């Protein structure tokens, strides 16, 4: 069988059981088990597909309705959570799906945020233009740095990306044209329609952030289900084998790095849109660490799990913090440590429940 045949067969298998499994992460062994289940329990395919559409739809409807019931402060917080969650998705593309642990996505997040801020101050308040400019700059930066970075892997990849993140942080902090350590303030509120009114109400800004989040999330989810995403998972599980099958793993990794950079750039423009202020702190080491930890705690490889992790991290750090006398980081530390010991058990229980539901003890 030629490599191309193998790939095509793989893709068919993915289509067959895509309806059955609503997790974005599935390694080769899972795939095999899932396709067996599909064959043996036909009715569950129908139920599975309905559930697969219903749950995300319900989540989006609830998220979209939030400004109708919540005040200005919680809505700003929700915008912040969504922007950070998109950064976490970009980390997950590399760390969870491709198996390259990264601390460098803050660089592209920062590129997007600063670009949006500069466009907003000097050119136009149109959010779509800011988004496009931010994504372009972040992608270009990601491809330029990624060409070198993706030659490494494992701990070395982690350290090189840390260097990329810290270097960008240094540039932002020392370059006076972007405000140095003071950052950029006085960014005008965004507008969505060309020549339309400025969105000063946090609810409208939130809807823009939510819309971009949903669109980008769906695009990423689609890409991760496509053969491209399967190649990335193959790199994570066994890169030499993939190379032996004739896949160009370098270009796949570079493409993943570029995609992750674009997503992080989009997240950066959303961050600027809701905060209307950027500073080097927004791309510091702790943001990078929190983004990576959100992926780990939410379940590396799945796309929605890390988003929940991101929400947990931001809520504990920024919101619960006020109730425990500003000791949010302490609580977050406890959550992380507890997570290390509890999560494997939770995953085991969930796995057993899922197996029982499918009729496999």
């Amino acid at each position: 069988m030629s490599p191309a045949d193998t790939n095509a067969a793989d893709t068919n298998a993915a289509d067959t059981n895509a309806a059955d499994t609503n997790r974005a992460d599935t390694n080769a062994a899972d795939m095999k088990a899932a396709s067996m289940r599909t064959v043996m329990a036909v009715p569950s395919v129908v139920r599975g597909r309905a559930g697969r559409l219903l749950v995300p739809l319900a989540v989006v409807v609830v998220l979209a309705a939030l400004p109708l019931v919540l005040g200005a402060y919680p809505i700003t917080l929700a915008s912040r959570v969504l922007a950070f969650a998109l950064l976490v998705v970009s980390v997950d593309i590399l760390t969870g799906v491709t198996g390259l642990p990264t601390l460098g996505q803050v660089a592209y997040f920062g590129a997007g945020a600063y670009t949006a801020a500069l466009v907003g101050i000097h050119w136009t308040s149109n959010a779509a233009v800011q988004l496009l400019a931010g994504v372009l700059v972040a992608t270009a930066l990601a491809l330029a740095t990624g060409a070198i970075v993706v030659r490494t892997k494992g701990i070395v990849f982690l350290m090189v990306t840390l260097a990329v993140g810290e270097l960008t942080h240094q540039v932002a902090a020392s370059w006076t044209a972007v405000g140095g350590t003071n950052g950029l303030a006085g960014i005008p509120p965004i507008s969505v329609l060309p020549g339309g009114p400025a969105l000063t109400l946090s609810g409208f800004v939130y809807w823009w952030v939510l819309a971009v989040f949903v669109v980008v999330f769906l695009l990423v989810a689609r890409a991760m289900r496509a053969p491209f995403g399967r190649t990335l998972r193959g790199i994570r599980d066994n890169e030499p084998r993939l190379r032996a099958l004739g896949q160009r793993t370098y270009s796949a990794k570079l493409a993943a790095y570029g995609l992750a950079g674009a997503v992080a750039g989009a997240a950066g423009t959303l961050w600027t849109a809701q905060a209307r202020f950027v500073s080097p702190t927004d791309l510091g080491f702790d943001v990078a660490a929190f983004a990576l930890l959100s992926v780990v705690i939410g379940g590396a490889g799945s796309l929605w799990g890390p988003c929940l992790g991101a929400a947990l991290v931001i809520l504990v750090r920024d919101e619960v913090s006020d109730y425990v006398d500003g000791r949010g980081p302490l609580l977050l530390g406890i959550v992380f440590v507890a997570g290390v010991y509890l999560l494997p058990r939770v995953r085991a229980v969930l796995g057993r429940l899922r197996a029982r539901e499918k009729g496999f003890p």
Partner: protein
Amino acid sequence: MQYAVTVLNGLALGAILFLIAVGLSLVFGIMDVLNLAHGAVYLVGAYVAVALIEGHASVAGFVAAVLVAALVGGLAGAALAGMSIPVRGHLDQALLTLGTALIITELISEFFGNEVRSVAPPPGLDASVGLFGQAYPAYRLALVVVGVVVAVGLHLLLERTRIGATLRATVADRQMVEAMGIRTRRLVISVFAAGAALAAVGGVLAGPVLGAQPGLDDTVLLLALVVVVIGGLGSVRGALLGAVLVGQVQALGVALLPDQASFLLFAAMAAVLLLRPAGLLPARGPAHA
């Protein structure tokens, strides 16, 4: 001779960095754990110094601070080792050690506040000595001496003793050492404890130069990571070379381009990693070949 002073500053910083980085490097080599709580352990040492000798400098007090820091650091390291042993996978270990670091640093800032604290060098070393026609702080020269003593001591321990041989063998091939009937668990815990004790002592010794404040743990952790990555994870010689290089780059950078000092540092690290991904002097053995 402005340049000679810069070189000396770099050596003093390098000595401190070596104390901190060597534990990080050995722990990674021996149990494959990247201990991201290492900076927090350093900060514990720095605050031990603040608690014991801030405001009343005496030689006895300084020695007591070093001993207490070594004890507290060692206990913290042993506890961290016990916590990390059952955790598999680099990502879960990162979650565990960064979480622990957050807890430790938050507790420290709860007890000591967020101001910058400083400790004075012990009497006798607080003066300046004439060097190249300039006054140079004697304490920094003492730091260089301490660094050399620790490096030589560690070298002898690793190359000339039975414990050292076992440790080197464990870094190279842990399963094989276990198959020969040596209990590596105890060794692993003591290396973790010793590395943490050195980091905490580093916190005390660096007190008169770097002071103590929240956030210093991140700075020190990043510098130590750069040191071990440049030098090669798991290797003592690598940590020494990395510490000297990073000390020089940092001191030169601060002297010549104050704004771009850490830019220079991370650029140097990126360059080393791209040319030699395993570091300049990687640990010997099949696991790291």
